[in-house]
């Protein structure tokens, strides 16, 4: 027996909103979803007129919905933004082909300019070449570190003022949880922020317009709007730990529907007691990216790759950074330790 839309009381409801429990028809759901993103953007003053904004586009559902909604709201409410899609090509044979094709179609569908930046131009190495050198077991260290910085490097190259990413409420809750589990107080304090300000030359401010949007609604928005997206996952090694956190979160949610927003709320309202040691945030002396060490993680990894010492940067080798910075040769013992690769 069909349920009626609780908003217009005319059409057949197509979903029950996890946030409010309301049953809405397609049209009323689209409107509610878009208006909430607009409210989020307005309340947090994420953008200023005239800014150029890069939308991180992977071809996945979150970024596809983000691109669609940003384009729509920019026109509906005259944000005055200069929007652009930015995609990163890691250089993994076969893996990005489908998702990059999707992004290229999105470019046509949304009439937004698209820039694809490759690892090759950003780092001088494709992921395939990295895997060849470091083995499958260690590649995700590179994946994670390089991916985090790729957008910044790309955005600087393209001279955009801001980047927005498709992180949704479920992602933020999951990150809060992971930082608690890992005892990462510094990240725990930062991870719920809806936007970051520029911290040095190497970093472009970022924001998350979908921060309060539930994954279920994003998926259904994409489904009912028939948006063109692609299911992506790192083929080299999906992050198992994150997977467990997500499963746990979904289990919690099935028992208590407000779990996601409750966890975000906890994260937002934590305050760290005075006297807790925090890593000092400096900048990388080579590329300007935020780093607590003299060299940022990706510069260390790159140095290792370029010197044929792939293990550099995988373990704790901070002692060696000074040597690297001053281009000093390593001792034979140090070299040996960094060369062996266990596949």
């Amino acid at each position, binding site marked *: 027996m*069909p*349920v009626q839309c609780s908003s217009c009381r005319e059409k*057949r*409801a*197509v*979903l*029950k909103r996890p946030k409010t429990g309301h*049953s809405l028809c397609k049209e009323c759901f689209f409107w509610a979803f878009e208006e909430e993103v607009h409210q989020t953007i307005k309340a947090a003053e994420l953008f200023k007129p005239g800014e150029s904004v890069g939308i991180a586009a992977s071809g996945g559902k979150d970024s596809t919905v983000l691109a669609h909604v940003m384009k729509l709201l920019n026109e509906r409410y005259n944000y005055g933004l200069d929007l652009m899609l930015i995609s990163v090509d890691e250089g993994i044979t076969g893996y990005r082909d489908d998702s990059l094709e999707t992004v290229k179609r999105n470019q046509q569908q949304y009439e937004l300019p698209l820039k694809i930046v490759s690892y090759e131009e950003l780092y001088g190495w494709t992921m395939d070449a990295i895997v060849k050198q470091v083995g499958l077991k260690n590649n995700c260290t590179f994946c994670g570190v390089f991916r985090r910085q790729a957008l910044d490097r790309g955005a600087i190259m393209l001279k955009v003022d801001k980047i927005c990413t498709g992180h949704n409420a*479920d992602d933020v809750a999951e990150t809060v949880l992971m930082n608690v589990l890992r005892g990462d107080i510094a990240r725990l304090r930062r991870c719920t922020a809806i936007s970051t300000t520029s911290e040095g030359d190497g970093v472009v401010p970022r924001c998350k317009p979908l921060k309060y949007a539930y*994954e*279920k609604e994003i*998926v*259904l928005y*994409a*489904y*009912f709007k*028939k*948006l*063109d*997206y692609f*299911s*992506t*996952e790192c083929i080299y090694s*999906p*992050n*198992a730990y*994150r*997977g467990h956190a*997500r*499963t746990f979160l*979904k*289990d919690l*949610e*099935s028992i208590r529907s407000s779990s996601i927003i409750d966890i975000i709320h906890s994260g937002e309202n934590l305050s760290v007691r005075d006297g807790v040691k925090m890593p000092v945030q400096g900048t990388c002396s080579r590329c300007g990216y935020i780093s607590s060490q003299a060299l940022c993680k990706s510069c260390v990894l790159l140095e290792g790759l370029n010197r044929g010492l792939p293990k550099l940067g995988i373990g704790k080798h901070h002692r060696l950074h000074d040597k690297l910075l001053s281009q000093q040769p390593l001792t034979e013992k140090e070299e040996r330790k960094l060369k062996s690769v266990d596949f």
Partner: protein
Amino acid sequence: MHTCNLGKYQFSIFGYRLIFLFFFNSRASELLFDGVKEHQVTLPGQSDPWDMKQLLVWIQRNLLKERPELFVQGESVRPGILVLINDADWELMGELDYQLQDQDCIVFISTLHGG
């Protein structure tokens, strides 16, 4: 992504003709259903109408290849998998108690990273 296409199949007196669409990432899809996204099946007739609870058991026995825990948990789908019945959220349709009709189209969408 394509949606339900009803009316494609003839009514059958032998049981229910159903369409399933599975939207999972390629890895999970490979493990669970040999990478086949769309399934047209005929359920055997029985004295009482089929409900979703029985259907999930049937899917587990007849369609799933490996790693059924990626799809089912207890007697329901694994949390994080969305279910649409004729393009409406199953939470509006009674979930496990929904009684299937001939030519129903059931869509399963995974929102999990590993799924």
